[in-house]
């Protein structure tokens, strides 16, 4: 067995509605693999099938070498899952929740105790061990769920939208934990609709739309398919003169003007700003503003689907997350 996860022609239909459509993917051992797509793209359905919560309509999949339908119990014992929605018992303390988990996974007493301290330390909740979960904030709860997912030392950890609805600072913390885990040799599969999450965290990303994988590669390769950076200039007048000057520069790959905006395709756009402004001044063209746009996974999504991810969701926090950094 080479791969942590392998799926072949995975399909899930709900009453004739296709949620997951012929998904083939292999997740390598030890990598952080991202499933990126808008809400309703089928990411969670894939996770639910791989974690034995749902049976696929067609196709097969193996997790750590075990068939997800025929060997459900074997699959269950080598995975950890952090669900999208809360799944803790609010009437139990953090320690009791972890203790329950450890027993369910057959961990003996002494090891359980040691491991509880370890995972609480990892997510910096040691001082909250004896607090009832109902008193935890959303971010703390999520951290505890991550700790719990790791408690029994799974080979593969599934994280379904681990930072959904969390503030930026907490999100960064959670990214750090996930990176730390990866050093423990845990294979991580994460779903997200946050571009920068997939970009920052994942070794490889599968972009999913309408239940299909439309692209799969490292974030860098995906973005390089889109090509170069874009420099956008807002100009008052003298478009024609500007065109002549700028197209004379050998590093300007293309020039595109509309509604008083000029878009230039250039490599390493940041460092070209002074030259562009200088050239415009010499030509006597007044520039009102300059902005740089580097290719993002959002552009990759747009390229493959013809739509922007934010059209699909329309959530306030999502729109902010998608804004250029």
């Amino acid at each position, binding site marked *: 067995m080479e791969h942590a996860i392998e799926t072949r022609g995975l399909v899930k239909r709900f009453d004739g509605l296709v949620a997951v459509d012929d998904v083939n993917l292999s997740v390598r051992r030890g990598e952080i693999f991202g499933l990126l797509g808008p809400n309703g793209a089928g990411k969670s359905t894939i996770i639910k099938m791989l974690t034995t919560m749902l049976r696929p309509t067609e196709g097969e999949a193996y997790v750590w070498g075990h068939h997800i339908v025929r060997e459900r119990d074997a699959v269950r014992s080598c995975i950890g899952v952090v669900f999208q929605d*809360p799944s803790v018992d609010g009437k139990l303390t953090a320690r009791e929740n972890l203790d329950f988990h450890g*027993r369910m996974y057959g961990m003996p007493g002494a090891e359980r105790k040691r491991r509880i301290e370890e995972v609480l330390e990892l997510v910096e909740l040691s001082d909250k061990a004896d607090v009832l979960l109902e008193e935890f904030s959303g971010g703390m709860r999520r951290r505890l769920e991550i700790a719990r997912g790791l408690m029994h030392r799974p080979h593969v950890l599934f994280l379904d939208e681990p930072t959904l609805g969390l503030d930026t600072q907490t999100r960064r913390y959670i990214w750090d934990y996930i990176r730390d885990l990866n050093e423990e040799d845990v294979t991580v599969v994460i779903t997200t609709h946050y571009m920068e999450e997939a970009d920052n965290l994942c070794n490889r990303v599968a972009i999913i739309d309408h239940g299909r994988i439309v692209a799969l590669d490292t974030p860098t390769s995906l973005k390089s398919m889109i090509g170069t950076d874009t420099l956008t200039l807002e100009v008052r007048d003298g478009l024609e003169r500007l065109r002549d000057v700028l197209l004379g520069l050998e590093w300007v790959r293309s020039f595109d003007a509309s509604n008083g905006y000029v878009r230039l395709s250039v490599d390493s756009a940041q460092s070209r700003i002074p030259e562009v402004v200088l050239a415009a001044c010499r030509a006597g063209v007044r520039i009102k503003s300059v902005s740089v746009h580097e290719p993002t996974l959002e552009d990759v999504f747009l390229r493959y689907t013809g739509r922007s991810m934010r059209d699909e969701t329309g959530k306030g926090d999502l729109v902010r997350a998608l804004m250029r950094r």
Partner: protein
Amino acid sequence: MRVFDPYAIYSLWLREMIRFFRLKSRVVGSIAPPFFFLTFLGTGFSGMAARVPAGVDYINYLAPGIIGMTLLFSSTFAGMSVLWDREFGFLREIMVAPVTRLSIVLGRTAGGVTQAVLQGIIILIPGIAMGVRIKGLTGLILSVALMVLISATFIGVGLAFASRMKDMSGFGMIMNFMIFPVFLLSGALFPVQNLPEPVRILSYIDPLTYGVDALRGCLVGANSFPIVMDTILLTGCCAATMAIGAYMFETSDID
């Protein structure tokens, strides 16, 4: 992985116990109604002696019935607590663990039975203070065994209903059309022989009728059917509802 996993069963039982003792208001809330029934009905009806078997005080007649009521309510709710876990997401944590569904059902049942029987025993204390005369230690021990059977029967019923319900909206229906008729027809408050013929038939298909009757026999010696017959019928009902409950839970959607 074993089909029967004592460690996981213990884990599920322990969780129920921690929750039970932590939620003081719930304990009080579950003890209060039977306490009021016992106190007010016991004293209010005592003079009227609603044609209870000769030589039995009404309070002696009523107390086992009220224990049956406590078990019925507490156990059905325990069986239905799957719904709460589904609502709060904890059910997923349980279902994704490498534990067989049978062990999960057994763990929940163990927790529910312990809670219900504890409540049944607690309600006996004010009963004794009000003049209930218990036959003897053997009767008391036998009645605890009967309480376990009654409780498991209705946990199975609760589990079966909860497995087919998406959320808690159907809860009121279960309460009004299942729990109350089972309680009122069981002879917990008055002898089923007082009921008119067609209604009495319903009493005879009510498992709680035999549970309450056997409890009455063991605790105060006022049974209307042979205790052995009661016990056999009750055991049959218990096996049936547990099997149905476990089957429906196993085949229910996790998500």
